[in-house]
């Protein structure tokens, strides 16, 4: 029997639980339901026998095949390298930009910049890739024409394996940093203006104010954002790379997702690609757990 207090509490929260139902149902259907599909990673899956049909179980054979493939290790290295660079840049750039934007006193131009840098976020990579392929072209592209003006030989950003990963990282940050900027700008507004006033009285200049008041003020958010992005350690960005890569940059640009795509979708090797996907999920899970503890320890952020 519930006490009166518990009953009132339940009654008060009931509408909230009801509102939660659609989300829970969707998560069960689209996130938990398909998890049963990981069984495929341990089968020699033949689609014609059906998902629930009489498939042959092969244990870890698919994983052994996968890790015996000659290009799997370069692929993992590329993935981690590209994803990690994106994570670092994805923190540094928006923080810097937010600090700079914060110094602008004219509200109109501040809003304008904020909106402008946020816009690319809404375009899909299919469109962005088409634009980048054009402006990065060595013969007619805008970037190389400008570089040519200052005497730099044309660079084939998308066709040179040593430039390709950097190109991916920079274009990705360019596309996404507007979103981070908005978060950090919001964090900046929460800093007590009185702190700045007293700093000025103590004779602190702009740089010192930034270093000793602004940065510590938003450090919690910075740590939180970086720690949460750790879970993306194996997410190189399929949409982006698939639309911009080519065989000539496979050596440095092929990531797990594109590799799995070519293997799984183009060749219908569902077992192998599920095994690769499961491996990716496993590694990501480790990082999520780690990041959760780190977030708790350094930013005091907990979900449970």
């Amino acid at each position: 029997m519930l006490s009166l207090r518990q009953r009132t509490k339940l009654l008060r929260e009931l509408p909230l639980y009801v509102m939660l139902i659609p989300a829970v149902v969707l998560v069960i259907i689209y996130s938990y339901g398909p998890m049963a599909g990981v069984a495929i990673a341990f089968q020699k899956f033949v689609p014609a026998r059906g998902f629930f049909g009489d498939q042959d179980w092969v244990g870890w054979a698919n994983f052994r095949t996968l890790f015996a493939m000659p290009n799997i290790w370069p692929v993992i290295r590329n993935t981690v390298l590209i994803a990690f660079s994106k994570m670092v840049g994805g923190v540094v750039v928006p923080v810097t930009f937010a600090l700079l934007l914060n110094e602008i006193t004219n509200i109109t131009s501040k809003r304008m910049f904020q909106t402008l840098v946020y816009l690319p976020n809404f375009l899909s990579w299919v469109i962005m890739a088409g634009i980048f392929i054009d402006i990065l072209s060595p013969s007619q592209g805008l970037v190389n024409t400008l570089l040519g003006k200052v005497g730099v030989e044309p660079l084939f950003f998308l066709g040179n394996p040593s430039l390709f990963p950097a190109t991916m990282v920079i274009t990705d940050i360019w596309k996404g940093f507007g979103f981070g900027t908005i978060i950090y700008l919001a964090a900046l507004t929460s800093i007590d203006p009185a702190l700045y006033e007293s700093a000025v009285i103590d004779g602190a200049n702009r740089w010192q104010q930034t270093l000793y008041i602004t940065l510590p003020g938003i450090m919690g958010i910075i740590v939180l954002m970086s720690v949460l992005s750790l879970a993306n350690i194996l997410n190189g960005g399929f949409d982006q790379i698939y639309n911009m890569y080519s065989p000539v940059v496979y050596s440095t640009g092929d990531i797990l997702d594109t590799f799995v795509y070519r293997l799984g979708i183009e060749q219908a090797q569902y077992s192998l690609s599920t095994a690769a996907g499961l491996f990716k999920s496993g590694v990501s899970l480790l990082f999520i757990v780690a990041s959760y503890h780190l977030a708790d320890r350094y930013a005091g952020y907990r979900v449970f």
Partner: protein
Amino acid sequence: MKWPTVVVLGLLLAVPVLTFASGETDTGAARVAAAAGPLGAYEEPISVSWSIQTAAASKLLDDDTWEDNRWSRLIKEKLNIDLEVAFTADSSTDAYRTKLNAVIAAGDLPDIFKTQDANVFLQLVQNDQLADLTDVYEAYATDSIKSYQERFADAYEGASFNGRLFAIPRMNDNFHNAPFLWIRDDWLENTNSEPPNTIEELVALAELFATGDPDGNGIDGDTYGLALNRDLIRQNHASILGLVAAFGVPGHGMNMFYRDDDGNMTFSWIQPGMKPALALLNSMYERGLINQEFTAKDESALVEDWTSARIGMAYGSNWGTWYPYNNVYKRDGVISRAYPIPTAAGYDYKVGIQSNRVGQVTMVRADAQYPEAIIKILNLYDETVNFSGDDAFNRYWADEQYRLSPVYIDIPNEVYQPEVNLALERGSAEGLPAFARRSYQYVVGFADGSLADNDNAYGTWGQQNENGSLNIVLHRYQPDNAVVQSILAIERPDAWLTNVSVLETLAITAFTEIIIGQRPVEYFDTFVEQWLRAGGQDTLDALDEMYPE
């Protein structure tokens, strides 16, 4: 679930269904009567579901929709069959294949559906998912259809399993799928050149195109000599297939397994002729004769460059005048033609084609209620397109409309080309069979200008004129014994299925790196070793047993 359980469950489910079915239509004999012969209508309307492969080339004319169009109405009117669309997906991308695989795994197959993937067909047959069409084919197919079976015996074999027919093959003949060299007419004219016969002449012409002003815009050197696209070895336009063929390498995607002169099983991309071919491509690339950014260009980028006159020469397939060179013809009236591939001194050239046992097949799911419907629709298709006069042909076949029929077969142009040639010589279509007469009319009509604006006429003309791609095969490639057919039919070894994606990546990457000079030509030897080690040798050994000499 264990098999006994399935069987028991199956029986439990089947019993009431069977009782019900027999109560409804009495016996099988009654149903045959209801189906009334090869072209007769069903007494009661029946409904049949099918999946539509849409493609870049598909067109819906007038107010047609996928659900309600000229073919669905014709089939309803003549056969009393209501067509239902199970799903539509683009087959020129991965969409259709992905969708079909999902539908297969979910056990939710439409009554009639197609695949181009031999492995899908094989898996379905082996797991009893397909209706055995042998008996309904015997009972219902018209004599005309049965006559194709003799001509396209290989295709029928590829649609059969243990001697039983499980699908209707498209009945195209792969020999036409050899590579050709395509050149724009206006570029040859502007540079006062002849089409090249040897590799040296090809390089010289490419040089002329790259450094001169073939497009006549007054600027030298803003054009390229030879087009390549990033996929290199796949059968599409701007591949290297035609160039390596000159060096005795019969390439064709990842399909070309064959026995060499000593009877050993081998594969196209590990042939020694690849080395001089890659060296040549590398030197052409370094001299700026090949588009420098080809590694970032796919086939559709080539179409743009060709239409906007930045590129005027490329190796490609027989259907160029249908697509993609129809674009520049439509825009600027520029004709592009296919030529035999230029040859290299000291090498017997070899063009690679797939086995006739593989190709598009149309299947019926195992428990479809009316398996004979596909044969009746096929009869109707053949009757309408091939034997009912020009109006019916134009309405139901031309402008890609044939794709709206749940099952279609190719017009066997290959078979009738010799007769078309004779007619062209005589200047009269008299005595030609119906579909050959159509080709003749298109070729003549395009040549004399009366059908100059007709897409079908330009398309057909490119393939079937006196020097068209079909005649290149018949009068050059075949007499020279240059055509090599892959042995790879529908059965493939596991080693291949598991590794083909990695092996293709290995080949494309190695060739690209050699062409753009990132690695020396000697790297080809390393590639061959890697290729053999990463599953290639296992595949060759398995194929040697699977397809004995």
